[in-house]
């Protein structure tokens, strides 16, 4: 095999993996809607449909030793981080087999073994924790990166400003990823922020910051790779604004009265999944058969996860107060 062909194969493999991850998240979320309607999942649930390129593109850039801090719209982050779908869905079913033993639900997915620090449902609340994780790595001389995902709503919180400043001041290895889906629940960015160019604001704290087309998974992956590489060679925070859009309402309770249907339809034209498929097809990297096989694989995985969640045991009520404090010998 020529060097050129090897590179082409590697590229095709990488793109296929990104596509597979995005389809996995999309189909998972679609099934979650059905399961929510059937009352198998309760509570607040925030869907990631439309934003898949961000999770897939960002999280492919980091390794098992790196840390990830996320938000309440985190099903996609959890899946892209490698949390087993069984454990994620079982959590939403409130089962002991869930990744938080049924104590967290949709908004609080955790997996210490994969350094996935949740699942924070206070907007902006994850940023200080991410700074601390990076501080620990820096103080121990570990070459790791902490990825901190949050939405555009968090930019209005004091923690955003406190944490970007602190991370830059102390030169901490944090990759701040702002998923700008244009709405903080129902409030559009320009109704809440005097300066809507979020990268400009991040840059004012003395870190490299750029905006990326968050609907283009290849652009996201490339930006994330570069940022992570930079952080590893010269520990300092970096900021990415991922310009994206959620196709569904804020949560299952949201009647979505605050935006035009035409706006949603317009953004759907930039849907990251067909966009990557089109690109790969043009480049001869994807056939209809291959795409169908990915869909079938994903379908099997989801069916198995549902079956496992349905069969998962419930935490006994006697264990209600376990884990309020650490268990001591």
């Amino acid at each position: 095999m020529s060097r050129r062909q090897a590179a082409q194969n590697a590229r095709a493999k990488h793109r296929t993996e990104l596509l597979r991850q995005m389809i996995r998240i999309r189909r998972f979320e679609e099934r979650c809607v059905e399961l929510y309607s059937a009352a198998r999942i309760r509570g607040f649930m925030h869907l990631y449909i439309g934003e898949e390129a961000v999770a897939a593109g960002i999280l492919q850039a980091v390794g098992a030793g790196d840390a990830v801090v996320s938000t309440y719209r985190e099903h996609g982050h959890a899946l892209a981080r490698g949390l087993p779908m069984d454990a994620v869905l079982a959590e939403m079913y409130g089962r002991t087999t869930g990744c938080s033993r049924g104590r967290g639900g949709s908004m609080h997915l955790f997996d210490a073994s994969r350094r996935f620090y949740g699942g924070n449902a206070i907007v902006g609340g994850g940023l200080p924790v991410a700074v601390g994780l990076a501080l620990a790595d820096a103080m121990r001389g570990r070459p790791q990166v902490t990825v901190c995902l949050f939405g555009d709503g968090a930019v209005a919180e004091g923690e955003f400003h406190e944490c970007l400043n602190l991370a830059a001041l102390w030169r901490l290895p944090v990759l701040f990823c702002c998923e700008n889906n244009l709405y903080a629940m129902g409030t559009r960015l320009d109704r809440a922020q005097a300066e809507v160019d979020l990268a400009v604001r991040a840059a004012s704290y003395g870190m490299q910051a750029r905006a990326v087309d968050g609907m283009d998974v290849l652009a996201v992956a490339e930006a994330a790779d570069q940022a992570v590489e930079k952080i590893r060679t010269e520990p300092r925070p970096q900021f990415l604004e991922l310009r994206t859009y959620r196709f569904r309402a804020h949560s299952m309770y949201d009647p979505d009265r605050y935006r035009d249907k035409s706006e949603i339809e317009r953004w759907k034209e930039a849907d990251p999944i067909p966009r990557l498929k089109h690109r790969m097809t043009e480049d001869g990297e994807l056939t209809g058969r291959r795409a169908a096989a990915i869909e079938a694989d994903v379908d099997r995985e989801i069916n198995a996860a549902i079956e496992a969640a349905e069969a998962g045991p419930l935490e006994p009520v006697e264990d209600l107060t376990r884990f309020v404090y650490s268990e001591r010998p």
Partner: protein
Amino acid sequence: MTTYREALRAGLRDALEHDERTFLMGEDVGRYGGCFAVSLGLLEEFGPDRVRDTPLSESAFVGAGIGAALGGMRPIVEIMTVNFSLLALDQILNNAATLLHMSGGQLNVPLVIRMTTGAGRQLAAQHSHSLEGWYAHIPGLRIVAPATMEDARGMLWTAVQDPDPVLLFEHGTLYNVSGELAPDAGAVDIDHAVIRRPGTDVTLIAYGGTLRTALDAAGELADSGVDAEVLDLRTLRPLDEPAILDSIARTHRLVVVDEGWRSGSLSAEIAARVAEKALYELDAPIERVCTAEVPIPYAQQLEHAALPQQADVVAAARRAVG
């Protein structure tokens, strides 16, 4: 002789020397030497990596303490006063106290937060409140209040070893208090209340800044033939309920001295538990001596009138013994 401040500093030095995972961070803990000079000299001794000055960003640096604890460190965070801790309340409640349970037992947070509490120094309403009772409301936290030299010296190390978040409240009027401290003083438990003065006629429960008030009141009561027992709570959450009930079983009378406001206070919790579990042991209604329900005022006579005083405790004890 040593001061409460020096005893705290010795505890900090001990932790920094004996566990390389520990570090101190907060506003002006380094170059300034600590707002109340507790950490004076530690920057020179341990360097800026481990005695870390922070910007005025309470939420960020308390949350960073939580993250660093998750990352394997044993951070000690200093917040200047409990009033300022409200800027970090989200991190303390929604993360530090909650992560272990919410993650199904995966993420414990071995973090110590020290802060100054209490009034008595004419610092007015935004530097003087006693809000430790609020924190004692929260499952997942351990709340301690050193009132003696031994506890100022020894509680920190035990707190640093704890796998879960511990909040340590230092009463502002104690820093300059001096007393004897054994040269070999070291770690103390943070589980139990301690009887500081045994007695038979009435139990005075106090902690932190009010312990001295209760002991002085007991001395005054002794002059008039009332033998008061003084119980120092030491740990406000979890409460050492057996120690409280044991004392009531001996004295049958209770006065709770609490610098918090009466409504919804720690004193209310103690009174309720005694009413639930030892009502028939009581020979008199429970008495509470608390801070008047006002923001702490500046003027000396007003501040004095707002706070639990020795005379108030003596009067309450006299009512109880009848």
